Structures are given as C-alpha cells and as structure tokens.
C-alpha cells in the first residue's frame, strides 16, 4: 500500500473513539504501525487473515474448523518507471493454486513499467486476473465459477492497465499458472475489464475472459472456458454502497455438450458509524440447463476496530448443487484481519 493509501485507510476506514475527524493521518498508519520507515522507492506490507468456521449441513450436527487463510509479506521496489513487486507467505492448504512448495505460497510477483505519471502500467508476471469486482469473498459464485478470485486464482501473463479519472481498464494475456502442473492444466487466453464512472459515486464496468486448457482442472478434458459479465458499484449516499455483478459462464469441453450457465451477486454495505459495516448479500449460480440453481444469502458485520486491524462476522445460508444433489447448510464465519 502506498503512503496515500495508508493515510486514507487511517482517516476514512477505522473507527475513531474520541474527538472529531482528524485532518492528518496518525503516525500509526505507517508501515508496521509506523515502526518502520522504508525509503520512498520501497513499499513494504504484510497481511494476516485467520478464520474460525462453524458449519452445519441441514439435518446434521455442527462442525468447526480454524483456517489460516493468509500470512503474507509483500514488497514493491520503484526505480524511475520500473516496478518490481512480490508477495510470499504461508497458508494451511498444501494444494493452493498459489503454492510454490507445499504450504508456501506466492500469490503475486511481477515486473512492470509505469508511464504517464502512473496512469499506465505494463506488467509481466503472476497477477490478479482483471475481471469483475475485486472482492475478498473468494467463495462467492461470481469469483469462484469464473476463477478470478484474489485468493489464489492469479495467473502468469502480460498485462496493460490504464487508470484515469473517469475510466480504468486492464487487459491481460494469460500464459497459464506456472504454479500448477503438468502443463496441460495451464490455461491460455485473455482476461479484461473496462470500468467507467459516468456520475459521482457510480462506476459501471464490463469484463470478458476466454481461456483454453488441454485438461481443465475440474473436467479433466480439453476445455475452452468463457466468462463475460457486467458489474457496478454505486453509493446512493455516503454511508451505503451497493455492488452487483452478473456473469455468463460457459464451458466447451471436448467431446461433451457445452455448459452454459450464469453467476450473479448483489451486496449492500451500510456504514452507520465510521469503521462499522453491516452487510447483506445474495448470490446465485446455475451451472447449465437441467441442473438446479445454487444460491446463498450472507449477513455480516465488519469492524475496523484499530489501526491496521478489523474483525468480521458472517452468517451464511447456502444451498449448493452438484448434479441432482443439493446440500443446504448454515455457516458462521469469524475472521481476524491484520495488515502491516
């Protein structure tokens, strides 16, 4: 995160317990709560995200899990227009798509060049796929079924990004995820989005993705995968943000019928007090005609209770579908997130 981003996080994101809104960010907004002062050419950061999960399929008893989702360190070096960025960390699963060896992961590592006062960035390496809403809820159908989450769905490739006042866009040529093997499972193609802001507090975008792999990760046969969608972020008044996305999700596996389905989501985020968020979300996914629709409802709260730290509690009612089976379940998710 840049110093500007850190300052905005401190001024706008976290709860203030006394006094009015300060004009300047607190010193604790700096790297590692201000304990570290890296030079201008170096950005340092880190993320910890742990979760306690209680889940209960209908008709059965509660089970619980504690999951280490993220424990990453990250750094970015800027020399003139040259940018080099990398993250490294550990997760609980040894089968992450970002795994380097076992539980050791590197979600992003790229080399780039910035032009036009950072309005243009050209990068090569492992990066988030430019597609749809960039949200942390990686299990949401719109992220999960399009395989574009920011958890571990990054891929290697070359990307061109533009960021202007009223428009931002990125296009990435996907060369495959070189942290899975064999090569047959690597997808090649493109992913892109364009987002415009026609009015104040309103942004609307379109996304498109097309890839081909000799062996799809799940279908196990050659597959051409497509996703095309629209998304929007709207804030009718400052304390409320609405986000929505709808995607067409298509698979064309070799020697099998095409699967044409969709994924959608709508989320409302209300911030009654600075740093305290109440969220409601609904989502759905239909894999293909003839298969029932999966859906989920979320109700949650997120509290940015201290500098660099927030806790989140979600109640999730979900109905998953696999062929002609349906799994209805209830889950309670508690998360702690700390960043350096």
């Amino acid at each position, binding site marked *: 995160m840049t110093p500007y981003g850190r300052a905005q996080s401190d001024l706008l994101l976290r709860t203030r317990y006394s006094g009015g809104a300060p004009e300047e960010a607190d010193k604790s907004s700096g790297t590692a709560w201000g304990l570290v002062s890296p030079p201008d050419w170096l950005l340092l950061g880190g993320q910890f995200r742990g979760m306690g*999960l209680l889940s209960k*399929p209908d*008709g*059965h*008893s509660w*089970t619980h*899990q*504690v*999951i280490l989702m993220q424990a990453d360190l990250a750094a970015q070096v800027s020399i003139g227009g040259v940018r080099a960025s990398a993250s490294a960390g550990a997760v*609980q*699963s*040894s*089968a*992450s*798509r970002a*795994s*380097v*060896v*076992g*539980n*050791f992961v590197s979600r992003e590592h790229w080399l780039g060049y910035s032009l036009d006062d950072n309005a243009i960035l050209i990068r090569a390496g492992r990066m988030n796929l430019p597609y749809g809403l960039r949200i942390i809820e990686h299990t949401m159908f719109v992220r999960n079924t399009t395989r574009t989450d920011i958890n571990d769905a990054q891929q290697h490739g070359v990307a061109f990004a533009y960021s202007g006042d009223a428009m931002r866009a990125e296009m990435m040529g996907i060369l495959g995820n*070189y*942290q*899975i*093997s*064999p*090569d*047959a*499972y690597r997808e090649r193609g493109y992913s892109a989005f364009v987002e415009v802001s026609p009015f104040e507090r309103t942004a609307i975008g379109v996304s498109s993705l097309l890839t081909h792999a*000799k*062996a799809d*990760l*799940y*279908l*196990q*046969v050659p597959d051409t995968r497509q996703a095309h969608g629209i998304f929007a972020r709207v804030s009718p008044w400052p304390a409320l943000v609405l986000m929505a996305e709808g995607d067409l999700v298509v698979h064309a*596996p070799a*020697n*099998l*019928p095409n699967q044409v389905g969709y994924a959608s989501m709508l989320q409302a985020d209300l911030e009654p007090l600075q740093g305290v968020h109440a969220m409601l979300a609904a989502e759905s996914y239909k*894999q*293909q005609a*003839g*298969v029932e629709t999966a859906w989920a409802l979320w109700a949650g709260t997120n509290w940015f209770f201290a500098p660099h730290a927030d806790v989140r509690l979600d109640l999730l009612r979900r109905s*998953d579908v*696999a*062929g*002609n*089976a*349906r*799994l*209805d379940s209830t889950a309670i998710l508690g998360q702690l997130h700390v960043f350096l």
Partner: protein
Amino acid sequence: MKTPIIAFATNVAIAAAAITSTEPALAVGRFPGGIYRHLYSSYTVSPYEPPCSVCHLRGSTGSGTAETPFALSMKSRGMVAGDMNSLYQALDALDRDQIDSDADGTPDIQEIERDTDPNTPATVSLTGQPGPNAGCGGGQQQDFSGGRPASALGLLGSLALVWARRRRTRRRRATNLLKAF
C-alpha cells in the same frame, strides 16, 4: 558409517520433505479405504482404492478441501469428517437416491464401481489420471507433455546432501594435509 553432519543433513532433508511435501496426505480416517471396503463386492472392474482427489481438490487433504461435486453430494447425505459410519451411510444413500454429481447420466456409485471419475461428465479413469499438482516442483506424477518430474523439495534435499559431502571431503583433505606435515 555416516558422519554426524551427513546424518544431520539427511535428517533435515527428510524432515523438510515430511513437512512441506506436496504429495497428498492420508484422507480423513482413511475414507478411500472405507469406500473400497464398502463397495468391494460390487466393483465391475478390479477393485481399487479411490484416490483422495475423488473428494479433495487437487488431491490435498487439508482442512476445507473436500469440495469436489462428489464430496458435496456425500456431505448432503450425511458424511462428516472422521466418522467412518457416516461414510458408509452416505455411500448407501447415494446409491439409493441415484445421485449423479456430474450430471452425465451415470450415478456416482456406478462410476466408482467402473473406475470413472464421478466429478466430471468426461469418461476418465479415477485411478489412471495424472491429477493436477500444486507447487512449482510438479510432484512425481505423470506429465501430459513431459513436464518436470522432480519436486523442488527433492532438489533442496539433494543440494543439502551434496553440500554435506563437500564439507566431508574438505575435512578429509585438511586432515590429510595436517598429517603430511
């Protein structure tokens, strides 16, 4: 006889391999063996123990990875982690309800009895497919296109052994040199 340093390097390599290996660990309560035992008599091919990947994404048996369509169906019929009886009951329920997790027209239990993957409508073998591996090393499984067979961990272990051998050779040379004087 191994010198202490070689023994140490070997132990470190083995310990590291045990901690960070990308090979799948045993599934909860040996569920694959439970599937084998429960369906043994009805297999239409030579009976086999299904791979962990029948339930776990990319074969990892880590927490929260039993997310394949077949695993979801099993959970919908009452399978819970660590409870072998719940596995047997879920297998019976899948058979009774003719659950078809990949919607290909062949029920899951029949797919397992025929050694085809119940997670994909494609007719692929459960036991014969080189599943995807996570990690740069690529694991030890067969590659569709002649990929790297050795894991990064194996490489690290080999480097540790080479380093230890070179240290031992240097020590011997130094000892011989001292003896010469």
